[in-house]
């Protein structure tokens, strides 16, 4: 093989550079979150903090912004969105995977349409409607739109998982006298648990990261979510970058850990959901 050593080195460099570019901003966020206010504005910036300045992390919860409320709201909204998506989505996915019925193409088209939908196209009627029925600054006011926009992905992933399960088991259950509904939740759902976990992670990340609806619908301070919350840290003279990045690290770290632990699964779900589209 000609110049195989050379090309191997070139390849190694390429991989290293890619990894560095992808990972550096997250590292820099963490480094900045551990610098004192004085050090943050140093020119040129120091690569390692002089001392680990933990105060930023304390400030997140005490510096005038109720960040623990934001965290609680995000956990509740993203958690419930995930739960509802799994329940509603698994029913729909089950029939899509197992039955042929009239209107199936229409339903699939509906899902595709929502997956492509620009959220901004529906904010005016939803805002007026939620205002009139009192859903602004509530959890359902966010859970409803989040569920809507996460359903297509949920259903695509779950359908592809359900299709891989053997039909025999359900047939046996039906012969034993189970109703289709019983065979669904007694047999299919437990077997599809890995698929459920994959879907749950993706939906949770989507809901946790959402910004536009959260910004518009939940404007009361005690109902804000973390993504809107981190844009709200007040500064006396300068933007309080140290506190912001401490908060950013707090809300990103769980996602990063999830991703590192379950990367294979996430990629599987991501591609199953989209390649099906």
């Amino acid at each position, binding site marked *: 093989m000609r110049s195989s050593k050379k090309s191997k080195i070139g390849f190694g460099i390429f991989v290293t550079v890619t990894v560095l570019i992808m990972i550096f901003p*997250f590292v820099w966020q963490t480094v900045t979150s551990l610098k004192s206010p004085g050090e943050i504005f140093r020119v040129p910036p120091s690569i390692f903090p002089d001392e680990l300045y933990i105060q930023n992390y304390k400030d997140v919860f005490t510096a005038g912004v109720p960040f623990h409320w934001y965290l609680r709201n995000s956990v509740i909204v993203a958690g419930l969105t995930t739960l509802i998506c799994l329940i509603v989505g698994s029913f729909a996915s089950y029939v899509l995977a197992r039955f042929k019925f009239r209107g199936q193409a229409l339903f699939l088209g509906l899902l595709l349409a*929502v997956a492509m939908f*620009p959220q901004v196209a529906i904010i005016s*009627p939803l805002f007026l409607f939620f205002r009139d029925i009192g859903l602004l600054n509530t959890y359902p006011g966010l859970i409803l739109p989040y569920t809507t926009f996460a359903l297509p992905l949920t259903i695509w992933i779950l359908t592809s998982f359900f299709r891989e399960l053997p039909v025999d088991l359900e047939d046996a259950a039906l012969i034993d006298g189970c109703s289709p509904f019983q065979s669904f939740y007694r047999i299919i759902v437990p077997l599809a648990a890995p698929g459920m976990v994959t879907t749950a992670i993706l939906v949770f990340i989507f809901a946790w990261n959402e910004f536009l609806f959260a910004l518009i619908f939940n404007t009361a301070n005690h109902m804000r979510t973390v993504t809107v919350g981190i844009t709200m840290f007040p500064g006396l003279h300068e933007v309080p970058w140290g506190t912001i990045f401490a908060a950013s690290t707090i809300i990103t770290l769980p996602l990063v850990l999830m991703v590192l632990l379950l990367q294979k699964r996430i990629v599987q779900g991501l591609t199953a959901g989209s390649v099906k589209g």
Partner: protein
Amino acid sequence: MKSRSYLPYYFIAPAAIIIFGIALYPILHTFYISLHQINLKFPDLGMSFIWFENYIRLFRDVRAMGALLNTVFFTVSTVALELVFGMIIALLMDRALRFRGILRATVLIPWAMPTVVAAMLWRWMYNDQSGIINAMLVATGITSEYMQFLAEPVLAWTAVIVTEVWKTTPFMALLLLAGLQVIPREVYEASAIDGASKVRTFFTITLPLIRPVLLVALLFRTLDAFRVFDVIFVMTGGGPGNATESLSLYTYKTMFGALDFGYGSALSILTFACVVIISVFYIKFIGTKTR
């Protein structure tokens, strides 16, 4: 399994109702609102029907047309860059058996980060005084002095596009990798035996084989880029001036800054119409190849 009476319909009903109620019906309602004058600043005036006046205003509104052009520019440039870098990373992952795990884990980090957090972070890295990017550029001699990245249109665009590409290339790369992994190795071996160069193999074999996946990835990325909001909202707020204002951002400002819901809805419908056109274009394109 045979269809048993109405069972499938009971099972899809909840999903169908939610989607219909929260996405499909509202879009019709947006159109209805867009035919009215309605400003929440003056609630006493209520809603008055004004036909297509909001749309006439829209096409005469320099700022709206600017936002449309900005959005198209943003979409085309980010998706093109994501395609190139996504393909490179996908090919790396496909070849790098030993490093695949590491690469996959690292590209998932930007993907998993909330866009708002990523935008905040890059805004800080672009800072004109203590930003690491300015420090690096000066240290390597690429620029001679610190630049005000977010205060000058061309630089602000560059900054926003780099951030978006960094954040979303992983998605593209992972989808393309899924497409690449389906290609049997023998195809490459055969091509190598025939003496085809690597570049030629890529264009004549790899690319046609992953075309379906490629088009789906492009479709999703294009539509996602077209509704861009978070990155621009956080990094530039649409500035300097309105240089980086996207359609979504202008719509948001019209509705929740000026409280002009009628005109804001017309802007929403413009975004929606563009998305429909883009989808039809792609789906036709995807359709032609399968035949």
